[in-house]
């Protein structure tokens, strides 16, 4: 059943723009990330395109989460983390000397593995970012718009003042997406957004991603290949590499249109992974 669904969903992607018409938002050139002396990911080269959904898949420990966190400089929060190479966002070096990480994160939002609503009301969760960013005009409307965009409005419109902690896991995650959308970012990064959710909530999130694609560039890390196949236009496969000095690090093995990755990968490791014969 799972396989059939995958097949159906693969056709649901709609028309992918031809290679020449894609506009790169992120351009990574030789990006490596270190935690102290330990190299976590090595020499990643990738273009991530505007208003497409890009999935990052791969075995655990391959640096998927590390990579997505470099895209909005959440890696700054780990004091020992260090990035080499070049990572450009719309032409600007994200790690350039005068780039402000706070400004970066405002434009490039993030949704995390575990739903992390603040211990505040539903309304205040969405309004929080708007308030601190000074987007206080039409606050109520903006909150409603974000909740509608996150397909949560109908479920919570009568209890906006209730604590967000009373929502179900799936609702909490959509609230976190609404919270991220509210501040009008350009990109939304999703780090395994459905791994803590049940299948119904997961499918709601996936539907939502298809909706959001119209206005946003989405990057999703997932360990669930069916999910990548269902939602993503482009898929990047990260693998584990052991360097001669014994260091285990993540590398970008293959990056292509999702359909190609899942039906006709050019790298043996990708093929092994997507067909479940990894190892």
């Amino acid at each position, binding site marked *: 059943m799972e396989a059939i669904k995958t097949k159906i969903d693969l056709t649901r992607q709609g028309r992918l723009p031809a290679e020449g018409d894609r506009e790169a938002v992120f351009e990574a050139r030789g990006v490596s990330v270190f935690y102290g002396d330990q190299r976590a990911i090595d020499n990643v080269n990738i273009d991530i395109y505007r208003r497409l959904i890009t999935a990052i898949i791969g075995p655990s420990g391959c640096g998927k989460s590390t990579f997505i966190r470099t895209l909005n400089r959440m890696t700054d929060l780990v004091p020992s983390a260090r990035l080499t190479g070049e990572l450009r966002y719309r032409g600007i070096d994200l790690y350039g000397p005068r780039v402000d990480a*706070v400004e970066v*994160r405002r434009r490039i939002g*993030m949704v995390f593995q575990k739903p*992390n609503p603040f*211990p*505040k009301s539903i309304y205040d969760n969405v309004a929080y970012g708007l308030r*601190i*960013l000074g987007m206080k005009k039409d606050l109520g409307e903006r909150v409603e718009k974000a909740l509608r965009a996150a397909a949560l409005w109908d479920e919570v419109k009568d209890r906006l003042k209730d604590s967000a902690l009373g929502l179900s896991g799936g609702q909490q995650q959509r609230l976190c997406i609404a919270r991220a959308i509210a*501040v009008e970012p350009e990109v939304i990064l999703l780090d395994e957004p459905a791994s803590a959710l049940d299948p119904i909530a997961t499918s709601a999130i996936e539907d939502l991603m298809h909706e959001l694609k119209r206005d946003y560039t989405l990057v999703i890390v997932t360990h669930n290949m069916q999910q990548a196949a269902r939602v993503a236009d482009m898929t990047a496969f990260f693998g584990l590499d052991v360097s001669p000095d014994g260091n285990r690090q993540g590398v970008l093995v293959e990056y292509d249109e999702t359909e190609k990755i899942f039906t006709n990968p050019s790298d043996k490791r990708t093929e092994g992974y997507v067909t479940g014969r990894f190892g």
Partner: protein
Amino acid sequence: METSHGDESSAFERTRSRLDRLGDPALKAITFVAAALAVTALVQITYELIKGSRLAFHRFGFGFLTSQTWDTIHNQFGALSLIFGTAITAILAIVIAAPLAVAIALFLTELAPKPVRALLGALVEMLAAIPSVILGLWGILILGPFVQNQLEPFLGSTLGFLPFFRGQTSPTGILTATLVLTIMVVPIVASVTRELFMTVPPELREGALALGATRWEMVRGVLLPAARPGILAAVALGFGRAVGEAMAVLMVIGSQIGIHLSLFGHSDTLAARIAGQYNGASTNLQTSSLVYLATILLVISLAVNIGAQLLIRPIDRRPRRQRIALDRALETQGMSAD
């Protein structure tokens, strides 16, 4: 050890020695008595203090609370100026200490580089472990002269237009006592607050930062609200400590009865007055009056502590619930493994 074996049918009942069978109810009874003893200590203390203060209560009634006198020659006693001294030193100390302590906790959990955190946290806890008599000694011999010669003249010349900063400078007095109490209370509040901040899940911090909040906006919008009841409780506990501290205050406050606005002047607190009279209670009435003071102190500290506990409990329940959930999860896992 073992009693004789019965027939087959009673095999489940009789194989354990009497000692072994008695063990469980005995353990339960003994530990219950111990717990009851510990729990009823509160009641015992309250009862004995009320009993001990009966003589003074008979003589002065609640008028004790509104009288400023402490006259050992004419056997007239009252607590008002001591209550005033207690209130002003403890309130001032906590007003200075609370923001300092929260700031220290913030620095220790949010800003300091990782290796520094543990070291600095340990240093702050060490400050909390210094015995109060040593702080008193330091207060009277080192801080006192500094207060008299530098701090009070400076405050007098800059803020002397206020009634609080006027009067004879002195190494002892309300100001010195307040500073010593502040040094005592800061590490207590800071270490509790630090632990509170550490229990706030990192995902909440990330959630705020990923929205483009600055660190301070994250602290103000997420961290402080999440920890607020706990911080209030920590501050209340710190206040309770300041109210109840006897030695350090006794050594630096000047032991003088009277109500005045000057922070430079001498004063006295409930706890310090009791401690200071350890060798001087010459009459039963004076002794009883001291117990009366202790009763007032007990009532204040009970109120502050119960308030603080009520604030903490809802927080306390969460990890316990998580623990139970975790235990259950482990149990079911164990069962499925079989």
